[in-house]
């Protein structure tokens, strides 16, 4: 329970046995009374076993579906088990669970809350094509959602019952579809989206990619996904 709401924390994890125990432990420590569901997206390491030992519920996919696939499973679980709020948290430990009550509070008047990295709190910066992609995405998606969105690809989100219901039956599995396309889809159906500034921490394990070529590809894919999302109904 967070503020009287049955809350489920969904953590999609792929080969995160190095950090998942700490992340689950921290969430359970900071937020007693919430349930944690780790969706193991076809890991080849001991992610599922480590997460279960740390006290999380575990849903293990038989093979890798991508973040979108793992998240739809999470939302289906939330719907089937009658949760009021579902919150997505990354498995690498960059999201601070102390922000969760704030996100849940914001759901009083909104349907989907995004924990945003560039909204003033904490320090987090990117440069080059990755930055252009983020600027483009936030400019377009802010218009579509009629609210200021600065970090559209954030994996820190809170959804209420209405959005859980929608995501449980519709959630794209494609690359970037889980963030960009879901925002367009949600906004177009009249749900209220808001962002909350959150400070991000260094990842507990794993390294982010910094290759310029990859950043350019990212920009291209982001543009393609965004365009497709906008011309879809």
């Amino acid at each position, binding site marked *: 329970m967070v503020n009287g709401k049955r809350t489920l924390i969904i953590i999609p994890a792929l080969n995160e046995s190095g950090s998942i125990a700490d992340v689950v432990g921290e969430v359970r420590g900071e937020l007693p009374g919430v349930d944690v569901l780790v*969706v193991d997206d076809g890991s080849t390491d001991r992610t599922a076993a480590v997460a*279960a030992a740390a006290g999380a*519920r*575990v*849903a*293990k*996919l*038989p*093979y890798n*579906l991508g973040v979108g*696939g793992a998240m*739809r*499973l999470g939302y*289906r*679980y939330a719907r*089937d088990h009658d949760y009021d709020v579902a919150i997505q948290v990354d498995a690498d430990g960059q999201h601070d669970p102390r922000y969760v009550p704030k996100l849940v509070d914001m759901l009083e008047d909104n349907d989907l809350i995004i924990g945003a990295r560039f909204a003033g709190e904490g320090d987090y910066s990117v440069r080059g094509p990755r930055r252009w992609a983020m600027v483009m995405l936030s400019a377009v998606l802010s218009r579509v959602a009629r609210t200021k969105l600065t970090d559209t690809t954030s994996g820190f989100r809170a959804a209420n019952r209405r959005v859980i219901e929608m995501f449980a039956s519709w959630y794209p*599995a494609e690359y970037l579809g889980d963030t960009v396309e879901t925002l367009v889809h949600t906004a177009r159906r009249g749900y209220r989206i808001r962002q909350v500034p959150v400070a991000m921490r260094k990842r507990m394990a794993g390294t982010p990619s910094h290759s310029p070529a990859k950043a350019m590809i990212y920009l291209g894919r982001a543009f393609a996904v965004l365009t497709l999302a906008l011309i879809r109904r």
Partner: protein
Amino acid sequence: MKLTLVTGLTGLILLATIIELLRRRQLREKYGMLWLGVLVIVIPLSLFPRLLDNVAELLGVASGVSLVLFLGIVFLLLVCVHLSWEVSALEEETRTLAEDFALLRAQIEADKAARDELVSTDG
């Protein structure tokens, strides 16, 4: 004459292959019928390549053979697109199955944990 023999034989071998695959149930009927339909058009053309010359002239194509080539490529492209579409649908189906499977497995684990707890508190 030699050429007609080669093209005609190729057509007949393809026909035999499709029928054999259908007979062994290796090919779903919906695809088998498609290819049989194609062969019904292709075999007469392979035996009498000049059949389409009149139609080709009407469309401004120099010879019937070129027209067949063009239509063949368009048709193959469409088939490829159709197969991508089928694969997308299949991926969506297997995705749903994988999710159902994971949900069921989670439910079984939860039930088992609850039972174990019951046993340990009883005993």
